[in-house]
């Protein structure tokens, strides 16, 4: 069993972990990056479609290319990497974190001053969206299907129904079609699509794949293998409407019904949770309610673009390094509250130690001509107008911090009358 000491431990070798580790190294911290897979890159390894890097590199590239650039930068750095290494436990005693890691060379106990959790997301399962019926083979989460197609070269099926119009579902609709399958339709329980508009266009419209809104899959039918699914219209509360059921013959059901931040590792630490993001409360650096514990990337909240993940993870990595190397003084923080049609906003608190902060938010519904009002206590300090807001698209606002007087900032979003 080996015992090691580092300044910063980064858990997860996907785009978030890579960016955090590289930046922490730039700050001259001694960094360990732990990843449970054989190859770095996280989920990007299987995201072979383009659309990555437009903001960061001004170039459209595929997920693996985006990851490769970070991996090359990592190789140039002094970051130590453990692959095939799984973190079993994270704890804090006095001022030190202990990360217990299972690797194929033995167990490792690592002590560090700060930790960045970059463990990504998992997919919501079919039981969690109340799909019933038989239990045949042929039901896949979109991410699992993507792994099979892009990393192993096997197809989940030939006649496919997709539930969920999130980006992963849309991307897979196109991917499966390109590889010779027939995608019979994409069903979405909400009244509006969950994924980006451009994906609706280039993944569904391009291939004449119908999108059925306000519809869900209620049952799977089939003995050994999926033979059909039952779909039904749903009401505003997404409850199936009796009498609208239809049977769609198919051999595969692909589910793209939401991502859940993977925070099991830090749940035992009793951090302040954020129900809206399904994760934990953080400040603009990604620091949680536990000092020197940072969370970055999709584990913090589900991002729509990896470029933002890298941007925010760099900030987390840099801060994690700084706090590990030097004692920082306690700085005043203000809480951030959301009101009105905001699905969620991040961060939940702002540490007042910089000139400005970038706030991110998602609208709760499709909105035209709306106003975001930012108030410092009761005083309105900013108003921004938007001609169009869509939930799948994360928006950002840069806010100057030098005039914040109260201890609460409120973000309020509503459609203009």
């Amino acid at each position, binding site marked *: 069993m080996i015992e090691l000491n580092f300044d910063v431990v980064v858990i997860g070798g996907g785009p978030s972990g890579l960016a955090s580790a590289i930046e922490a190294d730039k700050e001259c911290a001694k960094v360990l990056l732990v990843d449970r897979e054989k190859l770095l890159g996280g989920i990007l390894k299987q995201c*072979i479609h383009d659309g990555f890097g437009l903001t960061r590199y001004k170039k459209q*590239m595929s997920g*693996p*290319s985006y990851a490769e650039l970070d991996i090359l930068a990592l190789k140039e750095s002094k970051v130590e990497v453990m692959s095939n290494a799984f973190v079993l436990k994270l704890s804090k005693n006095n001022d030190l974190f202990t990360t217990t890691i299972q690797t194929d060379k033995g167990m490792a106990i690592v002590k560090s001053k700060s930790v960045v959790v970059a463990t990504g997301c998992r997919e919501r399962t079919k039981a969690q969206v109340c799909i019933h019926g038989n239990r045949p083979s042929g039901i896949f989460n979109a991410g699992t299907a993507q792994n099979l197609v892009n990393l*192993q070269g096997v197809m989940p099926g030939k006649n496919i129904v997709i539930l969920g119009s999130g980006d992963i579902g849309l991307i897979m609709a196109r991917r499966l079609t*390109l*590889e010779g399958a027939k995608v019979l339709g994409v069903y979405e329980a909400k009244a509006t699509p969950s994924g980006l508009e451009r994906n609706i266009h280039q993944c569904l419209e391009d291939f004449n794949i119908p999108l059925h809104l306000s519809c869900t899959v209620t049952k799977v039918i089939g003995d050994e293998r999926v033979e059909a699914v039952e779909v039904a219209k749903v009401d505003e509360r997404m409850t199936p409407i009796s009498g609208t059921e239809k049977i769609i013959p198919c051999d595969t059901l692909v589910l793209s019904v939401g991502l859940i931040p993977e925070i099991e590792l830090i749940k035992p630490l009793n951090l302040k949770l954020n129900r809206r993001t399904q994760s934990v409360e953080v400040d603009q650096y990604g620091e949680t309610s536990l000092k020197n514990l940072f969370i970055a990337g999709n584990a913090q909240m589900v991002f*729509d673009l990896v470029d933002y993940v890298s941007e925010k993870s760099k900030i987390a990595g840099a801060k994690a390094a700084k706090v590990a190397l030097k004692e920082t003084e306690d700085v005043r923080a203000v809480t951030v509250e959301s009101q009105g049609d905001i699905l969620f906003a991040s961060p939940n608190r702002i540490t007042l130690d910089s000139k400005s902060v970038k706030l991110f938010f998602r609208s709760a519904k499709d909105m035209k001509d709306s106003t975001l009002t930012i108030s410092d206590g009761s005083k309105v300090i900013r108003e921004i107008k938007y001609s169009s807001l869509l939930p799948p698209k994360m928006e950002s606002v840069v806010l100057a911090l030098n005039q914040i007087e109260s201890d609460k900032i409120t973000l309020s979003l509503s459609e203009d009358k």
Partner: protein
Amino acid sequence: MEVKKLVCINCPKGCHLTCNLEDLSVEGASCEKGIEYAREELTAPKRNLTTTLALSERMLKLNGRARLPIISKEKVDKAKLLSLCLALGNIIIDKEVKMGQVVATIENIDFLASISLKGEENV
């Protein structure tokens, strides 16, 4: 006057474009690329093609991957996406590859490797 409404797919902004079908003038774009996109979309729509190529057993053992992700060097005719993909299915890569290198050419369309792979042990 006939117009067609489009959403630009070039970047996350997703500008809503309105294109006049007679004179091909475009409104709603926040950059040149949007205007170009709208015109092309209405006359000869093109897309990037991303897919994977098979790797040999040897390459799988060396690199721990069974497939090589690739991307078309330039956008291709939208109507050719499926046939190109089918044609690419017959290729197996069995040597070193550098990110950005041309690894296949079908109907004069180049496809680039998205990542680098080693071809020999101890590189």
